[in-house]
């Protein structure tokens, strides 16, 4: 028997683009991140045929986790059809030979930029979030060294001081997307720039969430069924963006996260931000039999973990 017969046939690329050493490193980092919920694990962010800051962090995690039997969905701010999402999806499909989908229920891996789908993810699904700034303390503590020491001591007073200042000056929390959360009662975490509407979806979720910043070379995780609490005061609570009075112009859906579409006359229309979900609603109204999963928020805007959100406005 000759060595050539034992070896794999030569390929221009290894499976899923990254070489095996890179994938092994990433998988080990991912395991560490899952073992320490919310802790930022450094990793050697590899070169990809894509510029840093365009989702390379999420892409590397997806490539390390993907296998031939997976089904991949890629979204960019809720949309499956944006240029970035389409390119990433095509690249993953070409390099890993996987099925792609726009249906949240059919996907096993969902790579996302700045949104979590409206339909509840289930056990066994993997959500990969692309992260621009992994350090939640950046705005209050510019020194990376000091910020890491603060994480080590679980000393997050500065971020609560920031909340205090917002309340004193503006009488409300002014944080928008990327609202800091405390994971498992220990680490402060930047949930990537998902809107506040999506932040509660990480709490006691059935699925695994991996967050990865390619440019900053950090990845972290929210394991399934882990407590994720947005920072708030005991007497002044975190609020999600109100979607009251907004009706999707395409589907008639209410109490979902909406994109505002300005009209020529100065008014606004709203359409669902989650295009995969919107497409399914449209197909159902056209008479097709479509399986639509349970959503995180019901038609009245109540979150599925009752008691988690306080409505004290």
């Amino acid at each position, binding site marked *: 028997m000759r060595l050539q017969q034992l070896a794999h046939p030569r390929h221009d690329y290894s499976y899923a683009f990254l070489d095996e050493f890179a994938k092994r490193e990433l998988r080990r980092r991912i395991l560490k991140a899952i073992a320490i919920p919310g802790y930022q694990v450094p990793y050697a962010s590899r070169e990809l045929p894509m510029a840093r800051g365009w989702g390379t962090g999420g892409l590397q995690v997806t490539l390390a986790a993907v296998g031939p039997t997976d089904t991949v969905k890629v979204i960019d701010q809720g949309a499956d059809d944006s240029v970035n999402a389409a390119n990433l999806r095509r690249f993953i499909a070409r390099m890993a030979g996987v099925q792609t989908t726009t249906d949240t229920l059919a996907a096993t891996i969902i790579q996302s930029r700045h949104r979590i789908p409206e339909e509840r993810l289930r056990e066994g699904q993997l959500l990969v979030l692309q992260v621009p700034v992994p350090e939640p303390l950046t705005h209050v503590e510019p020194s990376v060294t000091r910020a890491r020491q603060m994480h080590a001591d679980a*000393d997050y*007073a500065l971020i*609560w*001081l920031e909340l*205090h*200042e917002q309340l*004193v*000056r503006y009488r409300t929390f002014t944080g928008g997307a990327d609202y800091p959360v405390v994971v498992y009662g220990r680490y402060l975490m930047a949930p990537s720039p998902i809107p506040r509407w999506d932040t509660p979806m990480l709490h006691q979720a059935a699925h695994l969430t991996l967050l990865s910043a390619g440019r900053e070379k950090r990845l972290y995780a929210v394991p399934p069924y882990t407590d994720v609490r947005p920072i708030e005061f*005991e*007497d002044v609570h975190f609020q999600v963006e109100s979607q009251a009075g907004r009706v999707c112009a395409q589907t008639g859906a209410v109490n979902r996260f909406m994109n505002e579409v300005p009209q020529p006359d100065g008014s606004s229309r709203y359409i669902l931000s989650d295009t995969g979900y919107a497409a399914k609603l449209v197909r159902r109204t056209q008479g097709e039999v479509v399986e639509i999963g349970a959503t995180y928020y019901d038609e009245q805007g109540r979150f599925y973990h009752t008691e988690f959100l306080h409505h004290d406005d």
Partner: protein
Amino acid sequence: MMTRPGLDHPRLVREVPLLQARGLCRRYGAITAIDGVDVSVYRGEVLGIVGESGSGKSTVLRLLNLEEPADAGTYYLDLPGYADQNLFTMDRYYRRQIQIRHIGIVYQNPYLGLRMRHTSSGNVAERLIMAGERNFATLRQAARGALSASEFPLERMDDLPIRLSGGMQQRVQLARALALRPMLLLLDEPTTGLDVSVQALVLDTLARIQRELQIATVIVSHDLGVIRALADRVMVMRHGRVIEHGLTDQILEDPQEAYTQQLVYAKL
């Protein structure tokens, strides 16, 4: 055991000092800032430290505030649970807890003690937030209480310290230092740089708070007037050493060392 109130030892003999620091040394490269300084302060007592610029006064205060490590020496605070632990060799985390809960400091330069881009009330509330308070109404109330105790005009409590006068900035620092009712208050030239009338008002506030809270205080100043007004006991420092030490009246009326004599008579 029988207690005979009439025959008890005096309080200063019975009591353990709140603060006991022995043999403090601190070098910055080739410069020896302080060399073998002993400090002890009893509860409710005010210790004054005087001396010329560069004599090591502020370094002593920085060591007592646990801001810097000492090159040699021991530092004990008689606090429940920590009484027999040298704070210099303690874990960084617990050292910080003690600094937050039990030590308050007012700097000469308000930029060192205050966050200039945060509101004054936020500066005071920060101490409570650091100690774990997460109730906004409680924070507001505590900030209001501490600021009014240091005689700060409450209608300006949400202004930025950068827009306040020097005297008001010192009052915010004082409110911040006292927000958690610390055991030990450190004052680093608290009235230097204020004009004389404001200085008198701030001194009044300091004296009143000291009287009311009976808090152990260390005050550093090169102004003997301030020391005379506040301190019970005085340490005179020169070239990083304590050269004379005694009751305020004794030192200021009958100085023994040549340097102290110079200092006292230069003032008069």
